[in-house]
């Protein structure tokens, strides 16, 4: 690093010192995190998988050779066939083309997985935010509420509700019902995270500085606190999606799912009885589940690594 003149003004000095730090690329938290994420091969693989599934979910109507829940193969006398050129994943005993069902199921499972997560985050953030930011009895009550919901065993409760609302299920609202149930009973861990983060960030000096300038509570929460607590929420959300997909599969597998919509779980459930002879019916949707859950988990891990290290050099 050459210099022509003696260090006269502190400006020249500063320019140099900052130049020595390296050229400036995008320096926002997100840009830095993205660069770090890019270097994580597992995370990238996960992202690729997730995007792949999203693509399928969006285009399944056109990609799939057969419409959802179409038993056409039965009428064509091709039910119960192993994988072939016409039916790459084989057909179920009842006449479903498994390949089409897996494709359509992607949409169903992503709908539940992402939808439930969105509901859980919305509820969890609001409750967690109020619990974290307010002081006094209200905050304690909300905390207790979160703790109660946290300890409720999710699965039995959902099964119960699914049975109770079986009419809705029969009318094809099954997936939405499951989505809502998963969201409504799953928000508690999000609220803990949000509350914890708010407690931490609330005492940080830049928040106090904003109060000192005269910022309104609204501004403090949405301009200062929320952007700074997004990181753990995003990571949890990714992992939630994976978990919710899995839970959907379990619910459907247990027979509480919606028979009228294509999901991986339903397909597995229908095929499990004849697993020995027609293994392809449960196995392919099972693999799809595995892959999707893996993908989201890898993305979650990758995000965790990329977003977490403190940005001080």
């Amino acid at each position, binding site marked *: *690093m*050459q*210099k022509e003149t*003696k*260090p006269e*003004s*502190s400006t020249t*000095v*500063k320019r*140099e*010192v900052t130049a*020595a*730090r*390296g050229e400036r690329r995008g320096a926002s938290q997100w840009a830095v995190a993205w660069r770090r994420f890019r270097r994580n091969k597992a995370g990238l693989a996960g992202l690729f998988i997730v995007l792949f599934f999203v693509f399928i979910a969006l285009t399944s109507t056109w990609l799939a050779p057969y419409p959802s829940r179409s038993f056409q193969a039965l009428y064509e006398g091709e039910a119960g066939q192993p994988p072939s050129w016409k039916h790459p994943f084989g057909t179920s005993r009842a006449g479903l083309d498994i390949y089409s069902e897996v494709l359509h199921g992607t949409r169903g499972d992503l709908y539940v997985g992402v939808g439930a997560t969105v509901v859980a985050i919305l509820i969890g953030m609001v409750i967690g935010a109020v619990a974290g930011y307010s002081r006094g009895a209200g905050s304690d009550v909300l905390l207790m509420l979160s703790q109660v919901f946290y300890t409720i065993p999710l699965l039995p409760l959902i099964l119960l509700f699914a049975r109770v609302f079986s009419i809705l299920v029969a009318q094809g609202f099954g997936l939405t019902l499951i989505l809502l149930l998963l969201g409504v009973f799953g928000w508690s861990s999000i609220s803990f995270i949000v509350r914890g983060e708010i407690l931490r960030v609330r005492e940080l000096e830049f928040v106090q500085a904003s109060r000192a300038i005269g910022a309104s509570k609204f501004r403090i929460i949405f301009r200062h606190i929320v952007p700074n607590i997004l990181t753990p929420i995003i990571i949890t959300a990714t992992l939630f999606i994976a978990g919710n997909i899995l839970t959907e599969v379990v619910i459907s597998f247990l027979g509480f799912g919606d028979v009228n919509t294509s999901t991986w779980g339903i397909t597995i459930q229908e095929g499990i009885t004849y697993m020995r002879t027609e293994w392809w019916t449960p196995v392919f949707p099972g693999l799809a589940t595995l892959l999707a859950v893996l993908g989201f988990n890898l993305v979650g891990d990758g995000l965790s690594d990329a977003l977490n290290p403190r940005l001080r*050099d």
Partner: protein
Amino acid sequence: MDVLLDIQGLKTYFFTEAGVVKAVDGIDFHVGKDEAVGLVGESGSGKTVTGLSVLRIVPKPGRILAGTIRYEGEDLLSKSEEEMRKVRGSKIAMTFQDPTTSLDPLYTIGNQLLEVIQEHRKGLSKEEALEQAMKLLEMVGIPEPELRVRAYPHELSGGMKQRIAIARALASRPLLLFADEPTTNLDVTVQAQVLKLLEELRDKLKMSLVMITHDMGIIAETTQRVQVLYAGMVAEVAETPSLFRKPRHPYTEALLQAVPRIDQRKELKVIPGNIPNLINPPSGCRFHPRCPYAKELCWQKLPQLEATDDGHMAACHFWRELSLRGV
């Protein structure tokens, strides 16, 4: 003067994701028997890493790349981990800046002292070791040691924790103690207590002390000789009174002029610029971007540590020509 510790050309680098941090980049340093030497510098100067290097406890991704560290004639860098463990604590000890994190919160004070005592003196029964522990606590001025022995770190104040950390370091009567910013986290009046304690202990145990600090006041009051570090290299070495009276390196002068004094009002002279980046340090003399006397030679060639005509060692091309101000 008998030399206890002799470091030559030490280089310790940290291999991080962002690049190679040249934390210690060629440091010569020696400590004599029964001597109190200061290692003064700001953040990034390499003073703490030097101490960690001697004990070979540099955390990853750091590594000692070059140099020799001789203690009582033996080369520490060629020792095995097993052998180093015998050195640590019993021959050379170190205390750290934050006593809260250097004591394990899960164990009582007594437990932690016993651990050290029994490590270096096998064959002591538990009662004998406990007695030793209490004597140590008394030695560092902890009142009611019988009670404190059962206490957990979080029940004690900062000052007491630091004393206990010192007690633990001295459990095996090492001849050399590295004290890394021992009073920085403490209140002023407690700081005075701890400094006095270190002085008394040094006197009683005939121990050599390396005082690692950024505080020029502590250097003035506790050391006989001092080494000034900047950005991983040595800027100046001198006897303490002489360093303050007539520094031979511009950084030393700048530091002395920038530091406020409690006993007089003075103008604080600003050192422009910032501490340099250790991944990409400035070329030539690392202080040149901030040095008011810098000339072309300074950024072209790295100055070597030379002996001056008044007993100092200075790493500056122009120590002969410059007439620098002391306090």
